[in-house]
């Protein structure tokens, strides 16, 4: 604000004498808006000047010109009237002009009028010199702006909405389009083979199908990025990925621009709009438009919408940082080396490489799975074979009739018939290796007619002694060996009744009791008990003979009972041929009685001992003639047997 005034003042001092208005021309002059205090000298000078002017015009005073620069102060020179007159005469028009200017300066209205004329030029001039003008104005403008917005926000909205609305609209449209793209892709792929594969993948991984679709769809690579000068179509900078096969980027850049122009021209598109996407199969070019430059990305695959945001942001950054170079572009692309990092960020890619190479872990896992399956299969086969074998054995097992097999709850229910004599299944289970706990048996009893079982049953029922051999063949139960008479009699009763036995043949079976009887009788009858001469005492050493005799007697008793025989044992006493017949008889009788009594006392009374004395009349044969007498001082035995019913009577 100061400077324009200074300039004005300068003009004033140039056109008038410096000495006349010294206070106005100084650098220390106060602010323009303030009313400067008028110096006294000046005021009186103005009054005097007007007096002079009146006097001169009325002819009272001659007009005397005054030499410029001569006087230092008007007041000092007032006394010098002629000089003043002269001055007046010479400088009247300038004086008037000066007065006029001073009036202008003093009147705020006029001053404002004057300043307004040069204010814009002054502002331009000053803002070109330094930033002080900005610093001075900024607070006021900010405050004004704030107040305006607070007073009526709608005003600001109205102001910026025409500018912002298209951008906002565009952003919304793009995001909705991105959403529809994804949705469409999901729909397209849901029914295809690929879709089915992805569904399987979704099932396998447990991730939502939409996520799988997105994952596969998002595989892309930005192969090339072009920064193109919008006006000329010239390539400012270009980056390509390693995998890209790039043709001459300069020409491609120009052609891209040409195609943009072509589309815009051909389809009457609004000036603000432009071709944003070119798509051929999985290859596409995304174009982002800036005010001075265009960013084009050649993309293979399906990029996400966020890539567009990246392109947009980088393009905006480039514009921000290189505005000057872009607007004043003269064909020299060297200025744009610095945008390479921006383009590098656009050269994005996302890979989900298909796992063509199977990793060793996968191979191992596969092998493990195969091994597991193989082992499982082998186990299953073994299992099946075991059960098959078990059933085969069970069917072949005598005494079992398997009628049904059921499996439920991991258990196997066996039903059928079982001979009570059949063994349990544990040998079979052991043999086949089947867990007994898995088996639940339900058997109804029955008689198995298998020869083995008939024989078994026969043994069970007949309980033969070890000396008996039983065989069964074609309905005939045969007995061999020997058996006590009583057993044979019992067997005769039972054998024919045993199920499966049609005929009982014991022709090969000897009656052991019958066979023993003669031997026992012979042993008894050969026994000679020797007595002392004339006495009823046994000769010393005969106790053992007596003991043996007693044993034989017991056997005889047993056999007779077994064979149902009535037995009678004649006990005959003897004497030697010395002595008289009268004494010999009684002696022989006494000897017989004594032995008979003794034997009866041994519990053998059932043998019907009949004691008799024969004296010397029934001589006993001796091993040698010398022993004849000794052998006749003895007791001998004779056994007679008869079947009970023949004997009729009861033992003595």
């Amino acid at each position, binding site marked *: 604000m100061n400077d324009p005034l200074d300039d004005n003042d300068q003009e004033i001092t140039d056109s008038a004498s410096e000495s006349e208005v010294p206070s106005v021309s100084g650098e220390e002059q106060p602010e323009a808006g303030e009313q400067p205090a008028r110096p006294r000298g000046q005021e009186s000078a103005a009054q005097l000047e007007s007096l002079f002017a009146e006097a001169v015009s009325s002819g009272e005073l001659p007009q005397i010109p005054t030499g410029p620069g001569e006087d230092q102060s008007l007041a000092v020179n007032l006394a010098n009237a002629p000089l003043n007159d002269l001055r007046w005469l010479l400088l009247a028009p300038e004086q008037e002009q000066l007065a006029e200017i001073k009036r202008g300066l003093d009147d705020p209205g006029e001053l404002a009028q004057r300043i307004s004329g040069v204010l814009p030029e002054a502002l331009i001039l000053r803002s070109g010199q330094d930033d002080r003008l900005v610093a001075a104005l900024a607070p006021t403008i900010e405050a004004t702006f704030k107040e305006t917005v607070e007073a009526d926000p709608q005003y600001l909205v109205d102001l910026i909405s025409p500018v912002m609305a298209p951008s906002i609209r565009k952003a919304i449209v793009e995001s909705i389009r991105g959403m529809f793209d994804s949705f469409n892709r999901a729909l397209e792929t849901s029914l295809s083979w690929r879709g089915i594969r992805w569904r399987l993948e979704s099932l396998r991984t447990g991730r939502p199908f939409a996520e799988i679709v997105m994952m596969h769809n998002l595989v892309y690579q930005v192969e090339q990025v072009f920064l193109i000068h919008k006006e000329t*179509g*010239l390539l400012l900078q270009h980056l390509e990925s390693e995998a890209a096969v790039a043709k*001459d980027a300069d020409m491609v850049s120009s*052609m891209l621009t040409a195609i943009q122009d*072509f589309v815009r021209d051909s389809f009457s598109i609004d000036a603000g709009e432009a071709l944003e996407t070119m798509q051929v199969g999985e290859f596409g070019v995304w174009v982002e438009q800036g005010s001075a430059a265009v960013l084009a990305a050649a993309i293979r695959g399906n990029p996400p919408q966020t890539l567009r945001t990246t392109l947009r942001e980088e393009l905006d950054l480039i514009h921000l940082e290189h505005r000057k170079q872009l607007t004043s572009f003269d064909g020299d*692309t060297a200025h744009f080396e610095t945008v390479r990092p921006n383009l590098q960020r656009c050269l994005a890619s996302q890979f989900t490489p298909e796992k063509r190479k199977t990793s060793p872990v996968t191979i191992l896992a596969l092998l493990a799975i195969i091994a597991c399956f193989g082992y499982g299969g082998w186990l299953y086969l073994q299992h099946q074979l075991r059960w098959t074998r078990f059933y085969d054995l069970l069917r072949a097992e005598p005494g079992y009739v398997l009628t049904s097999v059921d499996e439920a709850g991991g258990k196997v229910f066996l039903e059928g018939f079982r001979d009570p004599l059949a063994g349990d299944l544990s040998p079979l289970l052991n043999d086949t290796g089947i867990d007994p706990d898995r088996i639940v048996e339900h058997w109804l009893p029955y008689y198995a007619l298998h020869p083995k079982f008939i024989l078994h049953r026969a043994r069970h029922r007949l309980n033969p002694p070890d000396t008996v051999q039983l065989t069964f063949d074609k309905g005939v139960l045969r007995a061999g060996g020997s058996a006590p008479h009583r057993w044979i009699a019992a067997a005769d009763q039972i054998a024919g009744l045993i199920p499966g036995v049609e005929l009982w043949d014991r022709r090969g079976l000897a009656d052991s009791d019958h066979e023993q009887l003669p031997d026992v009788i012979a042993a008894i009858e050969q026994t000679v008990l020797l007595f002392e001469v004339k006495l009823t005492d046994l000769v010393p050493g005969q106790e053992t003979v007596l003991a043996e005799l007693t044993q034989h007697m017991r056997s005889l008793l047993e056999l007779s009972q077994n064979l149902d025989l009535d037995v009678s044992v004649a006990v005959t006493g003897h004497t030697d041929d010395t002595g008289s017949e009268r004494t010999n008889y009684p002696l022989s009788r006494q000897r017989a009685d004594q032995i008979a009594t003794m034997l009866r006392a041994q519990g053998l009374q059932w043998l019907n001992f009949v004691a008799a004395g024969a004296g010397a009349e029934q001589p006993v044969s001796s091993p040698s003639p010398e022993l004849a007498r000794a052998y006749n001082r003895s007791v001998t035995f004779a056994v007679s047997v008869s079947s009970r019913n023949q004997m009729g009577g009861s033992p003595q």
Partner: protein
Amino acid sequence: MIQKKICMVGSFAVGKTSLVQRFVSSIFSDKYLTTVGVKIDKKTVKVDGTDVNLLLWDIEGASEAQLIRMTYMRGASGYLLVADGTRRDTLAMAQDLQKQCLQTLGPLPFTLLVNKCDLKERWEVTAADLDQLHSQGWPVLETSAKAGNGVEQAFLTLAASMVKK
């Protein structure tokens, strides 16, 4: 690297494309001319020891019914006007195009190439015609697509005038 966009305009069949074919590198086929209406070629020349990449926009031939798509001219630093010496109307068309360019793009360096100088005996364009243009300040070169006369020079002079500009 200095890059400049230049355009090549002219009537149909004046031999624009074949004129430069031997002197430029191209990755696009001539089909672009009839489909998109423009085909991009590249020519690198040396001006004062500096390589200058000229991106040559070969613009579809103009006809009486329609001049060229001026959109394609946007941002050009210079242009080549091509006329056919054997067809006088093509020179008139070149003049029309020059007017159109001047109107749309402002004053830019350009060069008039009068083609088919190998068929000079059949020329309808007279030396007087060319002299008149020359006197208006038009740089005029006689060229031959067959022999390749003047083409390299045309690129060089145009590039030089653009860089100096």
